[in-house]
């Protein structure tokens, strides 16, 4: 009954930049946005007046003040009114809104940017505010403990701690599987190497249509399709060891239609990467696709940026000629509740 159609327009990621955590930690929001937006546009030879739509992604709860993105916008240079939107989500969903906007065929390019502040004293506690305010949040459970519940559910359905440790090594958070397994539990069964290392961060991207994309980028990363799906929320009503939403999004986006060389997965907690890869495999992801060759986003996780960063890195691999088909994944919410997939291709 439901309808999901995919791209009708030729749209490509033509520019992507992210700020290093070290650089981001020196700047306020305005300086951050000024830096990444100028790098993603002027720095990539994209004229600002060709940008017909701008979307940003951020979250007030990370900064500790309402309307935090409004001040940040000054960095984008907006004294002449622009067509613009903002999502209180990871920048990957800002990309989705921009991609939908470009489907209309009347503008050439769109700018996406996002920022995440590591300003909270206890980000795991902040993230727990995503939980049902009546039945879950008052229990005092934090985001790491929700992830631990999920990891326990995985172990109960056949996953092993060794798998978690392998993910930790791939993310650069442990030197070896043995070393990871030797760590004490922090939130059993999670160890330090299963948790994200939060950081400041920001990213910007430009997407463009058809000939304009070709004119500003030697190897555009064409967005073959995008899809995003949410699971239900209530932790007790879900099989936490699986991600049906990710599998469905990946099927809708046609992940399995062709061979994929690189997949960049955004799973804030290590065990979630195991779930994500299993869901992608069910949806037909090539068994030999390289996982997170960029190193992934967990060693320097900037909330609300990491999802767009995963997709941006999947695009950069095409820009650099290292792959002809890549998949970028973004996630959001407690226990990997919400997932977005972008399938990117090189075209001759």
């Amino acid at each position, binding site marked *: 009954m439901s309808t999901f159609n995919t791209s009708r327009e030729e749209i490509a990621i033509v520019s992507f930049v992210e700020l290093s955590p070290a650089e981001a930690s020196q700047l306020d929001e305005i300086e951050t946005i000024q830096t990444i937006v100028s790098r993603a546009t002027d720095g990539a030879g994209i004229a600002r007046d060709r940008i017909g739509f701008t979307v940003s992604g951020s979250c007030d709860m990370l*900064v500790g003040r309402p309307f935090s993105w409004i001040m940040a916008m*000054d960095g984008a*240079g907006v004294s002449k009114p622009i067509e613009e939107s903002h999502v209180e989500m990871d920048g990957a969903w800002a990309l989705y809104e921009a991609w939908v906007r470009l489907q209309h065929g009347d503008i050439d390019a769109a700018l996406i940017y996002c920022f995440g502040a590591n300003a*909270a*004293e*206890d980000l795991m506690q*902040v993230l727990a505010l995503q939980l049902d305010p009546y039945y879950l*949040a008052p229990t005092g459970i934090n985001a790491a403990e929700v992830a631990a519940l999920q990891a326990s559910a995985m172990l109960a359905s056949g996953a092993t701690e060794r798998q978690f440790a392998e993910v930790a090594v791939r993310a650069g958070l442990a030197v070896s599987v043995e070393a990871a397994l030797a760590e004490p539990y922090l939130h059993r069964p999670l160890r330090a190497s299963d948790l994200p290392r939060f950081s400041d961060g920001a990213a910007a991207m430009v997407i463009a249509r058809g000939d304009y994309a070709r004119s500003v980028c030697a190897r555009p990363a064409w967005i073959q399709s995008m899809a995003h799906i949410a699971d239900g929320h209530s932790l007790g009503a879900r099989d936490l060891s699986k991600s049906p939403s990710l599998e469905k999004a990946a099927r809708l986006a046609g992940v399995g239609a062709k061979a994929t060389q690189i997949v960049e997965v955004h799973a804030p907690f290590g065990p979630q990467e195991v779930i994500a890869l299993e869901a992608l495999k069910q949806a037909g992801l090539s068994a030999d696709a390289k996982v997170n060759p960029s190193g992934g986003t967990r060693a320097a996780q900037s909330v609300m940026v990491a999802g767009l960063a995963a997709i941006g890195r999947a695009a950069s691999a095409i820009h650099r000629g290292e792959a002809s088909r890549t998949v970028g994944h973004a996630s959001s919410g407690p226990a990997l509740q919400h997932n977005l997939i972008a399938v990117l291709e090189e075209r001759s």
Partner: protein
Amino acid sequence: MSEATKAVVKDVTTMASPVSLKFRARAGKDLSRFLRGMKERRIVGRVCPSCNYVYVPPRGACPTCGCPMGDERVLPETGTITTFCIVNIPFEGQKLKPPYVCASVLLDGADVALFHLVGGCDVNEVRMGMRVRAEWVDEADAELSLETIRYFVPTGEPDRPLAQIREHI
């Protein structure tokens, strides 16, 4: 619930679920320099190298041009009230006792108005176009904050005509 309990406990329709979060605020490069000036009781704006407008407090980028800010410019402590509001309403977390005046003050030589408090006169005497100057806190109390200006007070000079402030509301 027993009948006896029901007699004293009303229906539960809400529950308090307090949340306490702590955040670190980062001033950034440009604002930090301005705040250091405040501690010395000086008003230090910045000039945009592209459009030459003078911003105070300076921001991390020129919102007109989208470029980083240029040279510093020390501004006088006098200016003009372009518009204002008298706050009569009490609310939770309020720092001042109503009534008090919040005003846009265009410092002489600046291109954007600064939002601050007005004191030193009856709230009903405040006018658009009124000339004011910064009233500083004592040197020992100077902070890395705009609060080092306690508020703006009338200078007694003649008002500036509305036509001159119209573009700086």
